[in-house]
Each structure stands twice: as structure tokens, then as C-alpha cells.
């Protein structure tokens, strides 16, 4: 605990220092990086210690805020989320040192460093808080600092729009959470987590639904995801990595905590979570497939991965309410492990995308191509990330999904009551997995392989040492977490125990052997890869090779314009799912015998936003116009409102 507190303090101090040295960007950067890396170095051993020992550490100090208390608790569940938080923010800061350099002249970098470290500190506070007031403080600081980072390039209309949507969604979510905490605190009258009692009857269900929506708005599962594909691409790339890798997991963490207050649950809660997960996994990856922009594609893929996490969580909840310890342990452990893995590979992918945008100047898939010759190191890292996110052996993505698969099979075999849920989860996972393969083959293929599709990326080059180092570290972590997955079981079991008591032992009994075999299989695969490479080298050693143009079926002068584009690659699938995607295409009208220049465009719509949220927001605004007489913009009147409200509250309490 003292080490984690030290990290928190370091982050806050460095944030303040970065802000105060905004006149000299180099110093602001130094403070930002030292703060983030130092906090990570101090916080990681502390969190890992709690994870491996399984013992929670608490701290309680008096705090003169009404209803609040400065009670912090570092239990294995919080520690399980703290580890990727510190790991990713530390590496993202190193990456950011290179990435932000070009913004330093404009004076924008220093505030961004302050906001970045504040974001890290607030997320750590959310994880540590054992009191609702403290939790909401952290939560709102997190929303605020990330909102400012989304507005980093606020001169762009797109970024301002993203920022506004993000702010509105964040405020709505926070209101819901206040309501949920209020309902939880009502029986005991205290806002300390330890004194929360399970509300009775329909009230418990109400808390669950409110918390699911409130935390879901942060986690970004469908249909609450509207802000995610707007806000994540707008932020600088190392911040996108942290937002997608860690921040949306705060929603998952909050949901897990709240579920802890509400146990035991009826079965339909788990079923609801599972259905949301299936919708989100399939919908997220389908929309990802239809994107043209690299960072938007990655953002939609985060929605898919949150869906996969919810699939595991839903299976675990169904298992617990059915009294099946096996199902509960496998489902929950799968969800937790996938959350951890996702922060590694999604962080890596966003950093890779950032490196491309940084050096090529654009992230438009149709204009990129052939970058693996110009940026070989970045392309190797991005390939590792793509293989991890499509759950291909021997990378880490497979292991988390493997546990969820085991849970789904367990539900299928456990009996008729859960069999259909198992089958549904299995199908959603398999289909999402296959679609993700197509999605990332498209992303990697159209950015790094083939010939450049335009001259815009001709100046691309590998980024500098700090950015590369961060990507190498994450790529190595992805491989290591796959090959050494049995070593993750102990922390996983401890974290699972903290969320669902008793799940840890069941996890050991069920998953230890399969996971050991998976890791053995991964090693065997690596051995076979080495063997195949050696065989090929032996066959080639005396011979060398000849070079020529690509065999384009006899056509000797293929050009880059004849290549298959990114949209063409995904077109068979996007066409097939057109009723769901509703992408818009504008085809040229061809007239006359010698038609002049024509243009063709397709646009992947943000369907849920355009069809549901935008009309709803419009309706709300119309309603709000009727109350314009309340809003004068005159400060005195607003102060009067506040005084009247306080007076009313006072009278009510008297």
C-alpha cells in the first residue's frame, strides 16, 4: 500500500509540475515521463505482491468530506486491474516522449502531460477507493482528464464533436452511478463499500440495471458504445492506447465490484450480460471490418473485446447463480484474463497505429500500403499485436479466449438448463474470432503489405527509440503472456476469489492442466516453427533466389492502383451483413460515351448513434428549449438558484 500511495502522490505532483512548466516543454515532458514511469515502477511490485499473496491491504484516514472517508483498499481484484494500468501507462509515457515532440512547439504538449498523469492517478484512485465518494471523485477526474485529452486537437471539428459526445455520455453515466450508490447506501446510511448491504427485491435488480448502464457507458459495450469510436481516435495515440487498453476496463471493474455488493444474483442477470456480450462482440467486429480509418477500426475492435469479456462474465454469473463452481470460475477467470491481455495487445496496436500516423501523416487504410519495407520494426510489432488480438497461437489472446471457450463448453455439458447459453456463447466467440481474423488481416495487410496506394506515405520511416522501445516491450509481453500462461493462474485465481469467493480453487482444479498443455503446445509450435525455418534455410542455402515482378497473370507491369484495396478486401463480408451495417455508398453516374472523371465513396455509418442517440438527443434538446426561461446567462440568478436549493435542503433536513 505505501508504494501505491507513493505512485499516486508522484503522479499528482508530476502532473502539477508539468502544468507549471508549460513554458519549457522539455521540462514538462521530463516531469511527465519521470512521474508516469516512476509511478509504474513503484506501483507494479506492490500490485503484484498483493496478487501473488492474495491478501488485501487497507488504509483508512479521516476525511472532512460529509459521507466520505479516505478508505483505500488494495485487494487482488483491484490489483489485477492495477497491473495493466501501471504497465501500460508507464510504457505509453515512454512512447509519448517521442510522439509528443512535434507538438511541443505549439505549447500543447505540457498540458497534455499533466492531463495524462492526472488520468493515470484518477484511474488508480478508482481502483483503490473503498468509499463511494472517493470512487466518484476518481471517476469524475478520470472523465475530465480524458475529455481534455480527447480535445487535444480541438481545432478539428471532428475532435470537438467527439469531445462533446464523450462529455455528455460521461456525465450521464456518472449520474446513473450516483443513483446506484445512493440505492446501495440507503439501508445502512454509509457510503463505505464495506457497509453496503444487498437491497431487497426489485431494488437489487434496479441497482444492477442502473450500474450496468452506468458502467456500461464507460466500458462501451453495444449499444452504449457511441462515444468510443469517436473519442479514442481523436486523442493522441499513446492516450488512445491507455483509453482503450485500461480506461474502458474501469467500467468492467466497477461492474464486478457492484456485483459483489449484490450477490446472490438471479440467473437472468448473467443471461443479460451474456446477451450484451454476444451483441457487442459480433457488432463490434462487424463495424470494425467496415472501417477505413486505422484508429477507428481499432476502437470498434475494442467494443468487440469488451463483448468477449462480457461473454465470459455472463457465463460466470450464470454458473454462480446455478451453483456450478466450475462454470463460475472458468467464465470469470476468462473474462479477467482477456481484460488483461486486451490491455497489452490493444495498447500495442494503438501505438503501432500512432507510429504509422506519426510518420506517414495519415491513418486512412486506402491511402497506405507497403509500409513494412519502410517501417520493418513497427510492422513486426503490429503483426504481433494483430496475431494476439485474433487469438492466434502462440500469443496471449488465445489463452483468455480459451478459458471462455472452456466455460462455454462446460455450460453446454452441464445440463439442459445452461446448455443453450453455452451454445450461444460458443457461437458468438467462434464467429467473432473468424471475423476478427478478417478484420486484422485487412488492417495489417492494407497498411504494411503490398505496394503503397498513394504517394502520401512515401516519407514513412520507423519511429525513434522511445516509441520503438515501448512497442517492443508490449510485443514481448504479448508473447510471454502466451507462452508462460500457467504462471498467470495464481494471480488470476486470487483475483477471481476476490470477485466470486471460492472461484479460485475451482479454477485451479479445472484450468491448471489445460492451460499448462496450451503453453506446452505453444512451445511445441515454436519448436516446429524453428524446425520449419531450419528446413527451409537448409533447402535454400546453396541456391539463392531470383527476383522479378509480381506474377499478375501474365500482365508484366502491375501498378499499385491495381492492388486490392482495404474496402474491396472486406466487401464480400460487409455486403453480406449490409442489413446490419447499413453503410452508405455513393456510386458515380456514368453518362455519355466518354465519361469524364468520376468518384466513388463508401461510408461506414455509426448506425446506433445516427438512428437512436442522435434523434433522442434532438428530442431532449427540443424539450430543453421549453425551459429556456430558466436560463438567462446571468450569474446572479444562478447564484440565487443555488441559494434557494440549499435553503430547501436545509428546511427539509430540519
Amino acid at each position, binding site marked *: 500500500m505505501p508504494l501505491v500511495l507513493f505512485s499516486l502522490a508522484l503522479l499528482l505532483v508530476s502532473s502539477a509540475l508539468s502544468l507549471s512548466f508549460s513554458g519549457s516543454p522539455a521540462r514538462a515532458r521530463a516531469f511527465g515521463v519521470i512521474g508516469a514511469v516512476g509511478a509504474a515502477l513503484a506501483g507494479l511490485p506492490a500490485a503484484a505482491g498483493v496478487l501473488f499473496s492474495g491478501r488485501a491491504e487497507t488504509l483508512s484516514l479521516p476525511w472532512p468530506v460529509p459521507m466520505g472517508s479516505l478508505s483505500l483498499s488494495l485487494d487482488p481484484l483491484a490489483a489485477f486491474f492495477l497491473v495493466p494500468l501501471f504497465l501500460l501507462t508507464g510504457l505509453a509515457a515512454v512512447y509519448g516522449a517521442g510522439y509528443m515532440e512535434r507538438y511541443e512547439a505549439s505549447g500543447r504538449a505540457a498540458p497534455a502531460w499533466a492531463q495524462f498523469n492526472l488520468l493515470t492517478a484518477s484511474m488508480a484512485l478508482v481502483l483503490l477507493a473503498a468509499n463511494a465518494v472517493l470512487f466518484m471523485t476518481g471517476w469524475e477526474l478520470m472523465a475530465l482528464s480524458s475529455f481534455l485529452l480527447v480535445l487535444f486537437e480541438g481545432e478539428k471539428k471532428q475532435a470537438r464533436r467527439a469531445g462533446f459526445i464523450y462529455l455528455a455520455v460521461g456525465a450521464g453515466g456518472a449520474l446513473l452511478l450516483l443513483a446506484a450508490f445512493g440505492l446501495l447506501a440507503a439501508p445502512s446510511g454509509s457510503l463505505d463499500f464495506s457497509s453496503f448491504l444487498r437491497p431487497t427485491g426489485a431494488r437489487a435488480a434496479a441497482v444492477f440495471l442502473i450500474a450496468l448502464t452506468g458502467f456500461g457507458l464507460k466500458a462501451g459495450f453495444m449499444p452504449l458504445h457511441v462515444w468510443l469510436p469517436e473519442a479514442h481516435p481523436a486523442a493522441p495515440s499513446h492516450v488512445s492506447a491507455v483509453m482503450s487498453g485500461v480506461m474502458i476496463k474501469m467500467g468492467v471493474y466497477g461492474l464486478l465490484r457492484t456485483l459483489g455488493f449484490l450477490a446472490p444474483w438471479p440467473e437472468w442477470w448473467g443471461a443479460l450480460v451474456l446477451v450484451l456480450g454476444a451483441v457487442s462482440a459480433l457488432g463490434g467486429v462487424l463495424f470494425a471490418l467496415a472501417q477505413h480509418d486505422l484508429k477507428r477500426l481499432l476502437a470498434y475492435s475494442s467494443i468487440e473485446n469488451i463483448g468477449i469479456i462480457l461473454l465470459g462474465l455472463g457465463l460466470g454469473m450464470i454458473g454462480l447463480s446455478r451453483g456450478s463452481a466450475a462454470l463460475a470460475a472458468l467464465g470469470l477467470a476468462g473474462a479477467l484474463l482477456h481484460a488483461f491481455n486486451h490491455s497489452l495487445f490493444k495498447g500495442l496496436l494503438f501505438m503501432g497505429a500512432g507510429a504509422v500516423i506519426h510518420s506517414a501523416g495519415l491513418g486512412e487504410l486506402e491511402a497506405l500500403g507497403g509500409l513494412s519495407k519502410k517501417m520493418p520494426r513497427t510492422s513486426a510489432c503490429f503483426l504481433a499485436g494483430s*496475431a494476439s488480438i485474433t487469438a*492466434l497461437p502462440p500469443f496471449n489472446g488465445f489463452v483468455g479466449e480459451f478459458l471462455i471457450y472452456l466455460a462455454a463448453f462446460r455450460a453446454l455439458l452441464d445440463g439442459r438448463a445452461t446448455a443453450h447459453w453455452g451454445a450461444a456463447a460458443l457461437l458468438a466467440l467462434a464467429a467473432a474470432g473468424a471475423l476478427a481474423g478478417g478484420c486484422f488481416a485487412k488492417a495489417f495487410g492494407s497498411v504494411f503489405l*503490398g505496394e503503397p496506394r498513394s504517394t502520401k506515405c512515401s516519407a514513412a520511416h520507423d519511429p525513434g527509440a522511445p516509441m520503438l522501445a515501448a512497442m517492443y516491450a508490449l510485443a514481448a509481453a504479448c508473447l510471454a503472456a502466451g507462452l508462460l500462461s500457467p504462471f498467470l493462474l495464481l494471480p488470476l485465481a486470487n483475483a477471481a476469489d476476490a470477485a466470486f469467493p471460492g472461484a479460485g480453487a475451482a479454477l485451479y482444479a479445472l484450468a491448471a492442466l489445460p492451460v499448462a498443455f*496450451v503453453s506446452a503446445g505453444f512451445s511445441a509450435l515454436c519448436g516446429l*516453427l524453428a524446425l520449419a525455418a531450419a528446413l527451409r534455410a537448409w533447402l535454400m542455402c546453396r541456391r539463392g533466389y531470383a527476383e522479378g515482378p509480381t506474377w499478375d497473370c501474365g500482365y508484366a507491369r502491375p501498378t499499385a492502383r491495381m492492388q486490392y484495396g482495404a474496402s474491396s478486401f472486406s466487401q464480400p463480408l460487409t455486403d453480406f451483413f449490409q442489413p446490419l451495417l447499413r453503410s452508405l455508398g455513393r456510386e458515380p453516374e456514368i453518362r455519355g460515351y466518354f465519361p469524364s472523371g468520376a468518384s466513388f465513396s463508401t461510408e461506414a455509418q455509426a448506425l446506433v448513434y445516427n438512428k437512436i442517440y442522435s434523434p433522442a438527443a434532438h428530442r431532449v434538446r427540443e424539450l430543453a428549449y421549453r425551459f429556456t426561461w430558466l436560463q438567462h446567462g446571468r450569474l446572479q440568478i444562478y447564484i440565487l438558484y443555488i441559494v434557494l436549493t440549499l435553503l430547501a435542503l436545509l428546511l427539509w433536513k430540519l
Partner: protein
Amino acid sequence: MRPALHFLAALLLAPLLPGVINRVKAFFGGRRGQPLLQLYYDLFKLAGKTPVYSRTTTWVFRASPAAGLAALLAAAAALPFAGAGPLFGFEGDLVLVVYLLGLARFLTVLAALDTGSAFEGMGASREMQFAVFAEPAFFLCLAALAHITGSLSFSGIFAALTGDTWRTAAPVLALLTASLFIVLLAENSRVPADDPNTHLELTMIHEVMVLDHSGPDLACILYGAALKLWLFSSLIAGMLLPRAGGGAYEGALYLGVMLGVTGAVGVTESAMARLRLLKVPYMLITAFAFAALALIFQLGR
């Protein structure tokens, strides 16, 4: 010792299967056809050739064939033969095998995209599209098999499938066989999903993706394809042939059934025309429907 021998047998005999298909097709076409061992000769010849690489390609293109073969070898090591245990098996190895096949596919697709050719990109795009329909169908088949036998490993499943299972759950197993056979046709790029012998690059799927490979790389790809065919026919043979105590006799019978499955592929290719490209997903959805029906029957049993 026996699993290792079985694995070795799979490695040695796999290139026989495409030869069987070719001979069956030749028989229906009234031709004499190429020698049964043609693929062995081809592999030997290709291994000694100098490869030609396109100037567009990178290390991804060069590494992909050998790495894909390694993935398929790993998958083959987890598959049982004639009811005997595999080299490598555990609860949940089903999932690992499916994803190893996915790894091989992913690598082939990336190598195709690396050439920058329109034709190969087209093939890659179609391969990924078909995988989206074939993979869930395959998973449903495995789920139904797991439910019938109560096991999550190939060895457990095929050890528990006996003549009795066929007596009590014949409709389920028949549906699953049909579904797996369709998946086999699509995954191994056979007619009616794909035509390995077409002369027009525009209509190929798998073959067009490997147009640019040559020499030892092409040998890896051809051998990998034979191994994949072996894998799927071994799955179907394992379902069709109830366990009968083991022994050399059963091994021979099993091999016979596998050759029968590949013969059936040859008959299908001879009797059917290739489907229109747009219809292939419907065929795969049929496989999916068969598997879903089988699972529903099984759950209701």
C-alpha cells in the same frame, strides 16, 4: 510409441490423399489420370528448385509457407488416429486445433496480400469470407460431438464414439457427418466451393493466393494442404468408424475409411459443377444449419 508412429504415418501418407481424389476424378472423366504418387514427385521436385520472389514482397511472404506448415503439423499432432491417443491431447484441445488451422489461414492470407496483386487480394478476401461461415459450423460440430461424448478432447471424443453411439444417436451423427463433409470441401478448397484445377485465376480462391510462391515455399504449401485434407478426413473417418478394440486390423480399416472419404470428395467433384461464388456462403450456412440441428437433436435426447 504408438502415437508417434501414427503421427509419422500421417506425415508420410498425407500426400497420398490428393492423388486418390485425382484418380477418382480421372476415372469419372474417362481418363487414365496422373500417377497416384504424383504429389510426392512434385514435392521432391519443388524442394530442389530455386524460388522466384516478387520485388514487392517482404519477409512476411517468405516466412508464411514454412510457418503455416508448422501450424498444421502442430494441429496434426493433436489428432487421434484409429481411436488411439494422439501425440498431444488435453481437455480443450479442440479449440487449440481450430485456432492452429486459423493461424495457417491467416499466414496464407497475409502472404497473398504481400504480393500486391489484385488477383491474390481477391483470393485472400474470399478465403476470409468463407472462413467466417465455415468456422462457426465447425465449432458447432465439435460442440455436438463434445455433448454426445462428454469430452472436450479429440482423443476423448473418438474413444467414446462406439457402435452403440451410432445405434442411439444415428440422426445426430449423420447430420454431423454431412456438416463436416461440407466444411471439409470448403476448408480444403474443393469443388463446389472452389476449383483447384480451374485455368482462370479470377475464379480461384485458394490456388490464386499461392500463385506467387515457388520452389520450397510452394512445396510447404502443397504439403500443408495435403495435411489439412488428412486432418479433416481423419475426423470424418473417426466419426464413421465405431471403435472396435484397436489393433492393426482397425488401423487398416480406418485408413480404408479415410480413403473412402477422399474418394467421396472425388465423386462430388466429378458429379457437381462449381457453385457460383455468391452461393458458396449459402452452402456453408447449410453446413451450419445441419450442425445446429444436430446439436438441437442432441440436447433434446
